[in-house]
């Protein structure tokens, strides 16, 4: 990378397109939820605009990068940007983990009279605090929102699919590291094989996750199963969403590797995605331990 001036790009249309896209997406979503007929179509349109924007914007960045417009300082800016973006994602998950811990350690025990809630059980005849099974003892309950709670008949088996998924995701972290080493050694074919392996593992993870959701749902563990169902699906759901994004980004990287975009000492695109993938990995470990296991 040459040491030239810091690259300050010319004006760009992509951000405003992106803003219009997300606005249409969100307005559509809200209307969809309120049963407005055009809501869903607006969502699709907004989503399409966002995708278009992402391709256009990132495509332009890739182009500039390939043409050697970026110096090492720009590269560092990207690194700072990506790391703190990932940190913000960590904090987003932290909110949901916080909810999980709070519910488990505080609100559910308090509902059964612990802490300074000596009198609270008066309101909940016969309620016993058992994490994961909030709803077991009270069939037929409706939430304040009017939704009837779903009563699970069985809980997810930690050492079945979740354990397998843990193994898959950990393995994918390893294969991705191999891919990185290969890239540093400029062995493109190896990079490609390891990347493909990583993506396959990621997709397999997603497949099993969907299968597991199917079982859980059939057994009655649903979003409406009280706080356990809520935290379970929101945490694993957002995680699965991130795996999906990660897998798509890995595929783009795979394509770029094939195109020969990266060199041994200049491959921020690859590294940024790898960081992201490892982050998704670590989140899963937290999920496995706190949602499925303990």
């Amino acid at each position, binding site marked *: 990378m040459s040491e030239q001036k810091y690259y300050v790009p010319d004006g760009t249309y992509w951000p405003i397109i992106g803003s219009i896209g997300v606005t249409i997406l969100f307005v559509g979503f809200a209307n969809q939820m309120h049963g407005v007929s055009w809501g869903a179509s607006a969502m699709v349109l907004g989503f399409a605009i966002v995708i278009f924007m992402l391709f256009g914007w990132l495509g332009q960045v890739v182009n500039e990068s390939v043409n050697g417009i970026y110096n090492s300082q720009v590269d560092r800016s990207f690194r700072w940007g990506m790391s703190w973006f990932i940190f913000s994602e960590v904090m987003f998950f932290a909110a949901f983990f916080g909810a999980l811990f709070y519910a488990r350690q505080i609100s559910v025990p*308090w509902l059964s009279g612990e802490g*300074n*809630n000596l*009198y*609270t059980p008066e309101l909940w005849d016969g309620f016993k605090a058992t994490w994961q099974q909030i709803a077991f003892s009270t069939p037929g309950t409706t939430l304040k929102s009017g939704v009837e709670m779903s009563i699970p008949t069985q809980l997810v088996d930690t050492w079945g699919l979740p354990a397998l998924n843990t193994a898959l995701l950990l393995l994918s972290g390893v294969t991705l590291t191999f891919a990185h080493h290969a890239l540093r050694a400029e062995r493109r074919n190896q990079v490609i094989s390891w990347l493909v392996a990583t993506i396959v593992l990621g997709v397999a993870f997603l497949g099993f996750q969907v299968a597991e959701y199917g079982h859980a749902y059939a057994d009655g563990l649903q979003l409406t199963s009280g706080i356990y169902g809520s935290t379970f699906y929101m945490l694993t759901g957002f995680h699965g969403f991130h795996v999906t994004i990660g897998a798509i980004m890995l595929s783009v990287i795979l394509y770029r590797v094939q195109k020969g975009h990266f060199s041994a000492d200049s491959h921020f695109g690859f590294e940024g995605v790898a960081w992201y993938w490892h982050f998704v990995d670590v989140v899963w470990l937290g999920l496995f331990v706190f949602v499925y296991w303990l």
Partner: protein
Amino acid sequence: MKRLTTLTSALVALVSTNVFAEYGLNMTEGVTSVSRNIYDLHMMVFWVCVVIAVVVFGTMFYSIFAHRQSKGHQAANFHESTKVELLWTTIPILILVSMAIPASKALIDLEDTSKADMTIKITAHQWKWQYDYPKENISFISNLAQSSKDSIKGDKKPEHYLLEVDNRLVLPVDTSIRFLVTSNDVIHNWWVPDFGVKQDANPGFINDAWAKIDKIGTYRGQCAELCGKDHGFMPIVVDVVSKEDYAKWVAKQQSAQAAVAASANKIWSKSELMAKGESVYNTNCAACHQKNGLGLPPVFPPVKDSKIVNGPASEHIKIVLHGKAAMPAFKILNDVDLAAVITYERVAFENTGSIVQPADVKSAR
């Protein structure tokens, strides 16, 4: 003109300490040990702040006055001293520690509800308070007084405008009382400044607080947590009476409730139900469904021309008894009141529903 005089008198109030008390410039000392503790803490911290303010602002204003260019003052050039930095880190810490000690004691004391002689359960509803005396088996609802409701838009305000209720909470003096506070819908907060009691009412949980009131009198407070449209209109009035008067009051309440229970067994005529129903409706339902039955759509639906109101009575009884989403459950009303208000809704507003008897409500419970 009247405004102008109040304005001038208020400005006078600002400068003359005498009038301060009258206009309520400071926190009340209240009538419980807790409220007095709080008051003392408040004044202590306040004076500490005043002293610090005098020192800090005094220095600043001296400097502004003396070290100005227009007076020909030349700027010095010092800009660092670890010594003073340490000094003005340590001194505030010491001050804070000396405040924290009495504050901790007060906090520990006021959270200790173990020594209470009697219990009152307070349940908040949008926008009224329900008081239960579990041992005495008394239960009633306390709404904003009609006199206040009627004068919200008018010019003539009654004496305790917005601080008067239809049914007051009655408590004995010199008795340790435990308040159990909860809510039926959103978060409210039961606050009587003179007791030093302010406790969030959280739906699904019961919080507690206590007070031992040492002066007979009438005390007023308000809901202190935003709870929707009529948050500003759910006052609290407490009559603190001698222990003998309290016993008398309890006996009277109990016999009144027995009479109501007895009347639930007879068959009521339509006009009796309608007359009673109208007043029950106006106190309990009109806040949302409005006096004219038109509601405030989209949040509060009309009861005029409603499918439920004009449909089978059982569904109507069910929604009023058990509530639905933002519609509160009215299990707390007695069978007679419920039969009356349901009948009223079904007949008034040009509705065409059947009348409902207390026995119907009883069997639906």
